[in-house]
């Protein structure tokens, strides 16, 4: 055996293999950083374009043909209306569906069908929900919804976020250990008593986190709302659920699709507002998750 074999140096073949590994590792790191850099560039681009247009009047004025006088008042009110109604509709429905799937449904074809169906619905493009909303809520249910109204939009967006909300709530319910249920049954509680007093309170932080994340998806939705006709010139604030409306994302689209640079700046300013709302919702969700996180 040669002397080199006994030295501590790795054989050249292994050195080459390790070098190849290092190169690969840096390639993978760069791939990851592309995402990070894109996010930074995107935020910087929007801030540079829009921050100067974030004046107090931007929040208090209605949209206008004159860029300097245009604002997002109607869009902000519309967004709050839409989110509020959407939360009122989707939260009880989503949690109830999750409770049924996790606690009540017997293992069998019915549960499998509904579960598979929810997974499939989560993958349906949002614009298809817009088509559904247009045909069912805007046209068919017009005596109830008033046509192209906030409630039509909220119902459409609720159907869109329901699968996300149900899946998140199911995970939260599943994380509640079985021993808690058994203790409750052991004391003679019925199924609903067990669910209401033990399972749901313990799962609630997780459910709320999922709800906020689902709503943060809803707040940026644009295409389905264009379908149901939220893209009109709205220079008023909705008074009730059957009123016409516009939302931030639609206002952004409206401004971004115009060629004049002033409107591009307005779009950027509105994007800043939208992203701030979105990030605060995400921050709230993360805070909630960390605060109430419990190890069983």
């Amino acid at each position, binding site marked *: 055996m040669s002397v080199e074999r006994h030295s501590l140096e790795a054989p050249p073949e292994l050195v080459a293999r390790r070098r190849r590994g290092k190169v690969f590792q840096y390639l993978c790191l760069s791939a990851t950083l592309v995402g*990070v850099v894109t996010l930074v560039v995107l935020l910087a681009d929007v801030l540079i374009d829009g921050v100067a247009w974030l004046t107090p009047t931007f929040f208090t004025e209605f949209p206008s043909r004159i860029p300097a006088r245009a604002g997002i008042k109607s869009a902000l009110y519309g967004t709050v209306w839409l989110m509020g109604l959407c939360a009122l509709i989707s939260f009880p429905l989503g949690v109830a569906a999750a409770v049924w799937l996790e606690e009540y449904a017997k293992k069998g074809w019915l549960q499998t069908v509904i579960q598979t169906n929810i997974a499939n619905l989560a993958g349906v493009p949002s614009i298809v929900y817009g088509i559904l909303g247009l045909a069912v809520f805007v046209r068919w249910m017009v005596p109830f919804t008033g046509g192209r109204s906030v409630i039509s939009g909220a119902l459409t967006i609720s159907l869109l976020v329901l699968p996300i909300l149900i899946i998140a709530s199911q995970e939260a319910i599943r994380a509640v250990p079985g021993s808690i249920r058994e203790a409750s049954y052991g004391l003679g509680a019925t199924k609903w008593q067990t669910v209401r007093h033990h399972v749901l309170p313990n799962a609630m932080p997780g459910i709320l986190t999922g709800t906020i994340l689902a709503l943060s998806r809803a707040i940026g939705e644009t295409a389905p709302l264009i379908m149901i006709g939220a893209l009109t010139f709205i220079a008023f604030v909705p008074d009730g659920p059957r009123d016409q409306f516009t939302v931030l994302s639609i206002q952004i689209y409206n401004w971004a699709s115009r060629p004049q640079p002033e409107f591009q700046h307005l779009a950027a300013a509105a994007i800043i507002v939208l992203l701030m709302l979105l990030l605060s919702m995400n921050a709230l969700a993360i805070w909630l998750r960390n605060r109430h996180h419990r190890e069983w």
Partner: protein
Amino acid sequence: MSERAIIEVARGAGGGAPVASLRGARSRTAKEAAIGGLLFAAGAVSILTTVGIIAVLVWESLAFFRRVSVAEFLTGTVWTPLFVPQHFGVLPLLMGSVLVSIIAAGIAIPLGLGSAIYLSEFAPERLRRFLKPVLEILAGVPSVVYGYFALTFVTPLLQPLVPGLQLFNALSAGIVVGIMVLPLIASLSEDAMNAVPRGLRQGAYALGATKFEVATRVVTPAALSGIVASFILAISRAIGETMAVVLAAGMTPNLTLDVRESIQTLTAYIVQVSLGDTPFGSIEYQSIFAVGLLLFAVTLGMNVFGRWFLKRYREEYA
């Protein structure tokens, strides 16, 4: 159980009046059944949604196909529904969607897979805790914002590099859609890699494999079903992507493979019609349902296939 305990439990139920004895058991059973029924009804809303989507799409499409033959729709190469002479050949729109998805996949698959491998095999824990939320935020940025970004940043950036690049073009749209679906591939693939048991990695290390060899020849093949499923789901998402494409790729139905030109996707056409004042019942109005049905069928098919693939080819590590 003592009667007293039963009373306590019944009181605890809230809502109804306290039940004083076992005689209340029947009403309690009835209440339980009613609640079970209500909860089931909430679950059934999802079934109603699916039925509603299919019924609406098929119903209005049937009206459309009474005026335009299915063959003309699926094989025609000219799409001019909004001016005379009207032609309803969907291929230009389908081509637009496919073109954007190919560009998006070209961006998202290598970058997403690279990110997944880095996060699962190489990243130190602290860096991972920073990178994961960043990718989550990237996935959460609304589509319309990506559209703005493509239009005002990506296209001007590319114009000096790609001669002949139009203001509205498939390339920028494809790139931002790729960035949008990248986190989906990264997180689903990473999940699949994390599910590969530690023992497999340790076995490979014991045989003298380097980290690179473990990542590419052990972990990636073992997680392949999850990785491929993530590609399929991401491409399906790219086909259904709307606002970024509407803003960046324009509204020109164009049967082309030239990524520098303006095109129109299936989704963008649906938006274009909704932007106008199209009367209910007109053929233009009905055409969005036919296009929507095609879009729904394609994306649903890919999603079902993706999940079937995940199940069928998953290695079970007990």
